[in-house]
């Protein structure tokens, strides 16, 4: 979407400044920079600060923020808004994310671009309400029913919350799909410096548009363009299995097969474009042990790798920035010379299983639950045990 004058004015007002922000707040500013037009949400710790800052700031940039009666309604409202051409988003945490699953499935099935921020907290259920966790990694992948694919990114600093919001909106428009910013409470509530870019350095991907309503859900394109409401095309949007023109056909096997495989494939085929990782490896072939982590866990993990290196141990490090689609190729390459990969994560071993599927070496989860992140010492100790 092109930034309109109101958004440009807002960015000009903030561009070039450095703010001291919570991860949640950085995410809110990032959304406005990304051209977000509409936010609908429901209060929940530790995600409420996203809504609070958006409520304060978005109207200044010409957008609208509302609080809905629950998370189901929030997710529904942003999908409705997206079909008018808006960039729309919501933000929540575990229990709310669970409630959104059905309408996330609707957004996937109707190929509706939108962004969901999940500031993960300790669960299941109410769990340790305010405490951070990374327990929704697989719910983000498989939370809604039926075969589907998803894009999810995991920031590990306030600055990255800001930066990745723009990636989220661009990916949502490029792949016509909901995109999840899979934060954790630790990153949501971390307070750090965030540099607000100048307007001249802000880049946006435009949503692809279709000319004929007959082909907005298929036809020749792997990722069809959209026609929005109010353009006189009698667009028909349904969560039921449908033909390229949006009309329901829930009985013909190949119609469902082709639709779902295409929705699956459009994200799979974009892997090279979507996957984001960061590596810090020692000279090739020297290391026998590697560490893979993401989000808040990646911070103490990196500290532990540094500490081990200071003691002469060659340890490789990889941080997953994109979680889904999984960086299978990059992780397989990373593992090539390794005997062992340690995976610190704030759950009982969710991404470690995914990593296991794509490497030949041994994978050991370094789990931590209880609402407190790993310490550098804890991970360092595991590394030292592994190398000895």
């Amino acid at each position, binding site marked *: 979407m092109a930034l309109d004058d109101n958004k440009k004015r807002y960015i000009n007002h903030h561009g070039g400044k450095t703010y001291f922000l919570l991860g949640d707040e950085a995410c809110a500013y990032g959304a406005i920079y990304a051209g977000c037009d509409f936010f609908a949400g429901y209060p929940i710790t530790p995600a409420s600060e996203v809504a609070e800052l958006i409520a304060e700031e978005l*109207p200044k940039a010409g957008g609208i923020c509302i609080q809905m009666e629950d998370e189901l309604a929030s997710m529904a409202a942003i*999908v409705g808004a997206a079909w008018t051409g808006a960039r729309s988003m919501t933000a929540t945490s575990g229990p709310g994310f669970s409630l959104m699953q059905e309408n996330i499935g609707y957004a996937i099935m109707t190929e509706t671009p939108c962004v969901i921020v999940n500031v993960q907290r300790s669960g299941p259920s109410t769990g340790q309400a305010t405490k951070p966790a990374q327990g929704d990694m697989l719910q983000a992948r498989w939370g809604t029913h039926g075969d589907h694919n998803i894009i999810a990114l995991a920031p590990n600093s306030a600055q990255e919350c800001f930066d990745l919001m723009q990636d989220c909106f661009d990916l949502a428009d490029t792949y016509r799909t909901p995109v999840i910013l899979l934060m954790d409470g630790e990153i949501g509530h971390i307070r750090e410096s965030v540099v607000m870019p100048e307007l001249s350095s802000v880049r946006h991907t435009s949503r692809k548009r279709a000319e004929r309503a007959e082909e907005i859900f298929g036809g020749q394109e792997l990722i069809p363009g959209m026609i929005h409401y109010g353009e006189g095309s009698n667009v028909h949007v349904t969560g039921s299995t449908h033909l390229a023109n949006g009309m329901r056909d829930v009985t013909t096997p190949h119609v469902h097969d082709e639709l779902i495989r295409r929705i699956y494939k459009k994200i799979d085929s974009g892997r090279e474009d979507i996957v984001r990782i960061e590596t810090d490896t020692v000279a090739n072939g020297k290391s026998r042990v590697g560490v893979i982590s993401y989000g808040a866990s990646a911070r103490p993990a990196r500290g532990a790798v540094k500490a081990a290196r200071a003691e002469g141990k060659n340890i490789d490090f990889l941080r997953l920035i994109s979680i889904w689609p999984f960086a299978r190729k990059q992780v397989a390459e990373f593992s090539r010379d390794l005997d062992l990969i340690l995976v610190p994560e704030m759950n009982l071993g969710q991404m470690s299983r995914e990593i296991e599927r794509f490497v030949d070496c041994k994978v050991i989860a370094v789990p931590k639950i209880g609402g407190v992140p790993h310490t550098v010492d804890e991970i360092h100790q595991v590394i030292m045990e592994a190398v000895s």
Partner: protein
Amino acid sequence: MSEPRHRLMDFVREEIMPHRFCSGCGCGTVLNAFTNAVEGLGLDSAEMVCVSGIGCSSWIPSPYFRADTLHTTHGRPIAFATGVKILRPDLTVVVIAGDGDVAGIGGNHLIHAARRNIDLSVFMVNNMIYGMTGGQVAPTTPAGVVTTTTPHSNVEPPFRVADLVVAAGASYVARWTTYHVFPLLESMQNAIKRKGFSFIEIMSQCPENYGRRIGLRTGIDFLKQFKEQALRVEKANGMSEEELKDRIVIGKLCDKERPEYVSELHRITREQVDKLKKEMGGAA
């Protein structure tokens, strides 16, 4: 010579006809009233978005009515419609869905939309049953009725949905039946014209999955009963609960002006934009 074309065919997706409503179903009557109402208002369907949920009556707009259409998850059409209306206040946004959808699983969205007074028209087709799934008890099913999930009789009293929506703060609320087609048509037009939350509870019939269990085998049986049960709201006022038992109170239950939600949201945004403009000395 080609067959004469019905004047309302421009308002339906002719290419997918014939429709799939059961014989005697009330949905066709509602579609008829709705297309007439839209035509009568001179509305261009290009300026409309129809939103529906899951259930038989959600098929009235999706796929049959020709306009931009959002056929949503079960119970959530009002919440989806909220997003559409906020971003495109210039479009007429109409929700047509059933009692199970709007007042059962989606009841929370209904009362909050009425409280906010968002400019939507919600036409709830109340057939007193979950028809599409085979005749299970609904929150609108009368007490004492046998359904597939109350085989020993329903012990719950039904919701009087229109009264609930009045209490929640809607601008315009009415109740009609599929027997009262002309007042229904006119009421739909008033609902669409009224800026604010408008709600019409349309008592309708499901001979297939409800009627056959209560001795009303055909659509006509239902219409006769609706005619007998109907009582004008003007007459009903002041009558006791006992006197109103088994009656359907029809007519306009409220029609008032209240600040409208979307206009208020846009007012705040305009104010905030202007404030920033001023702060920046009018710079772009």
